[in-house]
């Protein structure tokens, strides 16, 4: 039996998959994708029934439901009670009274930095990112939604209710960051830049960048500034047309189990907070993830921007413009 999973890179870690495969005597086929749009595009190009489960931004779950892709999940068979309540995201994962996805991992897009090179105090405010002090010393994570979210925070906007009218101001803020940035990079590029001292600050980074590197380079840290951070949260959903719904459910149950949660949280691709409070993490791991500080963090965190299709395109165009700005 095989399970076909459309995933992000953290689920590709054999340390996560192998125990499940061995326990159930199955094979998990995974396909990585980058953004929700690309994920849906892959589904569009496939035959119904090709896919069993999908990792998706929690905020994008309604889009999938709208497209009629997902199967409601049996609430009784999943540990909803153990989840951090702030990340359950009922407003997104529940549509018409049916729950279509379950949050499995979360974290923040905020600021990662090198403690030894920058003043940690400066990292308490987003305004440092656009000032002259760190000119040429920062990198921007190359994903438009969270970084646009951070730019919105910097100018005092709520990420939850961004409209087209906010874009000019956000763009201006983005361009200021860009002017200070040495590069705009994906995970490796920005990680490499931070780790090699190419830059000292990563805008849009967070525990997912620094936690994995902490063992090797304790100087790397992250902060959630006073304006807040952008909360990202990823969910697991099951496809309506799946031919292996039992196995798919088993997989979701496994990922949400304390063991699965611990493995997912410390996956080789990137670390992140498990959504299950009971995740079987070691103390060290908890410390690295700042497990205990979560309540305070969550309080300050703002939602991931969730633009409609039209606004989304505008945001992406704005992002392209920012990349092209000299």
């Amino acid at each position, binding site marked *: 039996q095989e399970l076909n999973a459309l995933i992000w890179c953290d689920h590709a870690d054999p340390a996560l998959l192998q125990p499940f495969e061995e326990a159930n005597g199955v094979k998990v086929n995974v396909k990585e*994708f*980058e*953004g929700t*749009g*690309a994920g*849906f*595009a*892959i589904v*569009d190009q496939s035959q119904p029934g090709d896919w069993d489960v999908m990792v998706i931004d929690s905020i994008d779950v309604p889009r999938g439901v709208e497209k009629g892709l997902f199967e409601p999940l049996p609430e009784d068979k999943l540990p909803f009670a153990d989840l951090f309540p702030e990340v359950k995201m009922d407003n997104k994962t529940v549509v018409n009274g049916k729950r279509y996805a379950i949050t499995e991992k979360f974290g923040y897009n905020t600021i990662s930095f090198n403690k030894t090179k920058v003043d940690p105090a400066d990292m308490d405010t987003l305004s440092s990112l656009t000032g002259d002090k760190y000119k*040429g010393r920062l990198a921007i994570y*190359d994903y*438009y939604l969270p970084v646009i979210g951070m730019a919105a925070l910097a100018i005092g906007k709520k990420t939850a209710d961004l409209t087209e009218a906010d874009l000019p101001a956000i763009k201006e803020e983005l361009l200021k960051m860009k002017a200070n*940035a*040495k*590069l*705009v*990079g*994906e995970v490796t*590029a920005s990680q*490499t*830049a931070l780790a*090699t*001292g*190419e830059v000292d600050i990563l805008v849009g980074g967070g525990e997912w960048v620094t936690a994995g590197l902490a063992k090797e380079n304790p100087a790397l840290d992250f902060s959630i500034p006073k304006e807040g951070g952008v909360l990202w949260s990823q969910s697991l959903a099951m496809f309506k047309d799946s031919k292996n719904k039992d196995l798919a459910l088993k997989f979701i149950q496994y990922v949400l189990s304390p063991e699965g949660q611990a493995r997912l949280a410390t996956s080789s691709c990137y670390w992140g907070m498990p959504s299950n409070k009971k995740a079987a993490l070691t103390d060290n791991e908890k410390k690295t993830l700042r497990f205990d500080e979560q309540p305070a963090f969550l309080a300050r965190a703002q939602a991931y921007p969730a633009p409609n299709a039209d606004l989304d*395109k505008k945001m*992406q*165009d704005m992002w*392209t*413009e920012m*990349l*092209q700005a*000299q």
Partner: protein
Amino acid sequence: MSTKPASERATPWALVTPALLWTLCFFVLPFAAMALTSVTAKDGSFTLSNYAQFFENPSYWRAMVNSLQVTAIVTVVSVLLAYPLAWILAEQVPERFQRLALMLAVLPFWTSYVVRSYSWLLVLAQNGVVNRVLTGSGLFADPVQLANTRLATVIGFVHFFVMLLTLTIFANLKQLSPSYRKAAADLGAGPVRTFIHVILPLTLPGIVVGAFLTFVLAIGDYITPQILGGNNELLMPQLIMMQIGRRGDFPLASALAIILMAVVTVAYLASARWLKIERA
């Protein structure tokens, strides 16, 4: 040219049809599908909006400008660097060692393309090897920003194409009849003038072929700018992959691909007279 007897006439179509069909099905047809997709709106109607977007949005056509600039620089620099090396290999290195020297010069060709770019990132990083040498030697006080710049992209490209061009130019130099060189010397030309008046013009066609190959491969490459350029600017392939990877916007991606292809076609036409494939 119907020199062919009856027995020879029966087979030819059976021989060439598979290759033609393959090209038709998997090259021409895809291109048609892409063209069709690029002018089809969501609702299935005809639209040119994808093309309009490219021309209206400065950050889109900026990508084309960047691509052309980078590719032009890469092509010129690669040719300028590779030619002398090929020349030294062909003329200065003793015959016995030439194959070995050439093999060495193109050996890194066989590292994985992806890894090679990544490797350059490490080399050029703030405290990578190059900067260590530069600061260590006291040449520069502070590390130089090399990684994540257009320069890095260019270096990554040039590295690959210097090898490729050395190979093609070397082959070109070697297949020149030695009597041309002798004849020039005999008529009073020194090494420099022999080179300028005879060797260079005779190898020009080979250079054009190599340069065109460089152009085609460089302008369509995604990996090198993506890994080395630090996204400080976008090139066309990055823009196209962005449409696919981030948005799944195939119509726009198709339109951009077709525009890119149109540019390559122009380059092709410019160098077409040198690009004939003929039998020996």
